[in-house]
C-alpha cells in the first residue's frame, strides 16, 4: 500500500493559553501547508508563537485551539489525542526534552516504536536498526541503557530526539529549535541525522528556528517568517539570507504586532 502524499494543513489557527489574567491569544490565524518530502523553515523572533505552533500541532494540553483547523491527509488532527497524533505520523522534536527517571532509552524507544508501528518490532532486526541509527548520530551504545534524558547534555538530548525521528519515520516532523544550545560539532551531527531522514523523501519537515545557522546544514525549500502570532512573510531560501543580514526588526513594531513588509514570493 502506498500513500501518494502526506499533507499537513493548518488553516486559520488561533491558539490561546490560560494565564492569571485570563486567556491570552498567541496564534492569531496561522495558515501553513507541509507536504511529504518538503522542508519548511519557520523563523521568527522570541515570542512570535513558533513554539506554540509546534506544541499545538503535537497536542500539548496547555494550548487551547480557539479557531481554525489542523488536518493530516484530511483527518482532523485536533480531534486526536496526543498519542493518536503520533501514531498518525506527527512527530515533535522538543526544544527541552524532559527527563523520565528510571525508564531506559532502549525500553522507551521500543515502547514508542511498538505503539507507532502497531506491532512490536522483531527483536533481532530492532537491535540492529537502533544500533545503526545510533552509530549514524555518533552515539555511544551505552546511551541506550541510560534513563530517558536523565543527565543528558544539551547535545545528547537533541541527538536523542533525532534518533527517535529516524526510528519512527514520521509523515510530518516538527523540529522545535533543535539547533538551540548545540555547539558546531553537535549541530553538524544532528543536521546530518535530519538530512538522512529527509533524503528518504517520506517525511515533511517543519524546522522551527530563531537563527539561520542551522539552515547552512539543512536547506529548506520554503521559509516562513512568524511574528505576532501570524505568518507575516514567506519565500524561498533567499528569504533566510535576507534575515541573516537584517534580522527580524522590520517585522516587529513597538508593541510586537506584526507588520508584513514584503511578500518575497508566492508559496504554494
Amino acid at each position, binding site marked *: 500500500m502506498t500513500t501518494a502524499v502526506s499533507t499537513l494543513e493548518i488553516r486559520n489557527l488561533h491558539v490561546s493559553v490560560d494565564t492569571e489574567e485570563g486567556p491570552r491569544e498567541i496564534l492569531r490565524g496561522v495558515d501553513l501547508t507541509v507536504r511529504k518530502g518538503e522542508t519548511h523553515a519557520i523563523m521568527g523572533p522570541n515570542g512570535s508563537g513558533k513554539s506554540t505552533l509546534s506544541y499545538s500541532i*503535537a*497536542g*500539548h*494540553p496547555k494550548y487551547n485551539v480557539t479557531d481554525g483547523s489542523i488536518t493530516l491527509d484530511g483527518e482532523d488532527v485536533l480531534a486526536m*489525542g*496526543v*498519542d493518536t*497524533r*503520533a*501514531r498518525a505520523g506527527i*512527530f*515533535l522534536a*522538543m526544544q527541552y*526534552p*524532559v*527527563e*523520565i*527517571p*528510571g*525508564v531506559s532509552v532502549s*525500553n*522507551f524507544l521500543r*515502547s*514508542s516504536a511498538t*505503539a*507507532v508501528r502497531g506491532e512490536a518490532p522483531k527483536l533481532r532486526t530492532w537491535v540492529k536498526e537502533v544500533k545503526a541509527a545510533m552509530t549514524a548520530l555518533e552515539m555511544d551504545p551505552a546511551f541506550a541503557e541510560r*534513563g*530517558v534524558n536523565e543527565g543528558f547534555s544539551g547535545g545528547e538530548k537533541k541527538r536523542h530526539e533525532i534518533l*527517535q525521528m529516524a526510528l*519512527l519515520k514520521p509523515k510530518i516532523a516538527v523540529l522545535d529549535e533543535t539547533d538551540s544550545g548545540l555547539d558546531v560539532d553537535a549541530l553538524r551531527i544532528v543536521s546530518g541525522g535530519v538530512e538522512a531522514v529527509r533524503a528518504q523523501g517520506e517525511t515533511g519537515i517543519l524546522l522551527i528556528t530563531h537563527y539561520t545557522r542551522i539552515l547552512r546544514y539543512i536547506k529548506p525549500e520554503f521559509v516562513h517568517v512568524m511574528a505576532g502570532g501570524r505568518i507575516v512573510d514567506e519565500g524561498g531560501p533567499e528569504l533566510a539570507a535576507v534575515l541573516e543580514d537584517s534580522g527580524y526588526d522590520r517585522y516587529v513594531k513597538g508593541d510586537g504586532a506584526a507588520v508584513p513588509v514584503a511578500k518575497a514570493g508566492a508559496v504554494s
Partner: protein
Amino acid sequence: MAVIDATGRPPAASGAVPRPVRSRSPLDHLVPTGREEAWRFTPLRRLRGLPSGPDADGTVSVSVQAPTGVAVEQLDPADPRVGRVLTPADRVAAFALARATDVTAVTIPAEAALTEPVVIRLHGESPRTGAGAAGSGVAYGHVIVEIGPFASGTVVLDHTGSATYAGNVEVYVGHGASLTVVSVQDWDADAVHLGAHAYSVGRDAKLRSFTVTLGGELVRLNPTVEYRGPGGDAELNGVFFTDAGQHQEHRLLVTHEARSCRSRVTYKGALRGESAHAVWIGDVVIGADAVDTDTYELNRNLVLTDGARADSVPNLEILTGEVVGAGHASATGRFDDEALFYLQSRGIPPAEARRLVVHGFFAEVIDRIEVPDLRERIMTAVSARLGELPADA
C-alpha cells in the same frame, strides 16, 4: 560546620530526634493515645488492641528455606540471643518480645558466601473475614538473623496471608560481613502488621535492606540501625504502594555513634485511592563522637489520585560538625504532566505512559534487589495495581 539540610530549614529547626523509652518490659511503655510523636499518624483504633498485648488467638506460621551450611533453629525466648539487638521502643514491640513463644533464628556462618538466598516465609493463617475467620487473629513472632564475620548472603522475609501480627526482627551483621535483607509485606487486604526491625552493623560490615510493603490493611514498621564499630555501611531502601483504605507507615531511625560509618535511606512510595495513607519518618542521629559520618536520606512519594495522603518527615540531629555529609530530601508530588506528554507524543497511550513513569520511579530501588524472581514478583504486583488505574488519574 558541614551541616546540610536539604529542606532548607536551619539545622536548629529540624529539631531533636525524639528519644522514646527503651525497655523490654511492656509496662514501662505508656499506652499510646495518639498525641505522642511516635503515634500521631497511626490510626490507633485500627490496631485491634495490640498496644494492650492481647493473648494470641491466631497463627503466623514460619518456614525457612536455607542453603546448606546455614543453621536454622527454634530458640527458647529466654535465649541470650533474643533481645541482643532490639530493645523495644514502644509497647507493641515490647509485648511482641514478651509474648512470642516461637523464636526462629537463622545463622549464616563466618566467611560463608551464599549463592542462594535464605527465604523465611511468614504466613498469616487467621483471616478476619471469610472462611476460617475467628477472634481477632492476634499472633506474635520473633525472627533473628545473624551473619558471621566476613560472610556474605541474602535473607528474604516474605509475609503473606492474614493475621493481626506483632513481629520483631533482629539482624546482627558480623564484622566485615555483607548482608542483604529483603522484607516483603505482601499480606492479604485484612492483615494488620506492626514490627520493629532492628539492625546491628559490625565494624566494616555492609548491610543492604529492602522493605517492600504492598498489602495489608495496616502496616507499621520501625527499622532501626546501630553500628558497633567504624566503617559500617547501611543502605535502607523501601518501596510501598498504598491503596485505598490502606495505612502504611515506615519509621526509620539510624543512629551514628561510631565514627566513619555511612548510611543511605531511599524510600519511594506510590499512593492511590480514597483514604490511602502513607507515613514515612526518617530519623538520623549523629552523635558527638561520630566524626566522618556520611548520611543521606530521601523519600519520594507519587500521589496517583485524589483522596490519598502522604506524610513525610525527615529529622536530622547532628552533634558533631566533622561529618562528610548529612542531608535529606523529601518530596511528594503527582505525575509529571510533561513526562506524560513526552511519552504520549511518541505514540505511547496514556495508561501505558503512566505505567512507564511509575515503573521508572520504582526501578531505582527495585532493580537493585538481586533476587530475580522476587524482583519480578514485586514489579508484577506494582503493574497489576497500575492496570486498575482510572483513565483520568
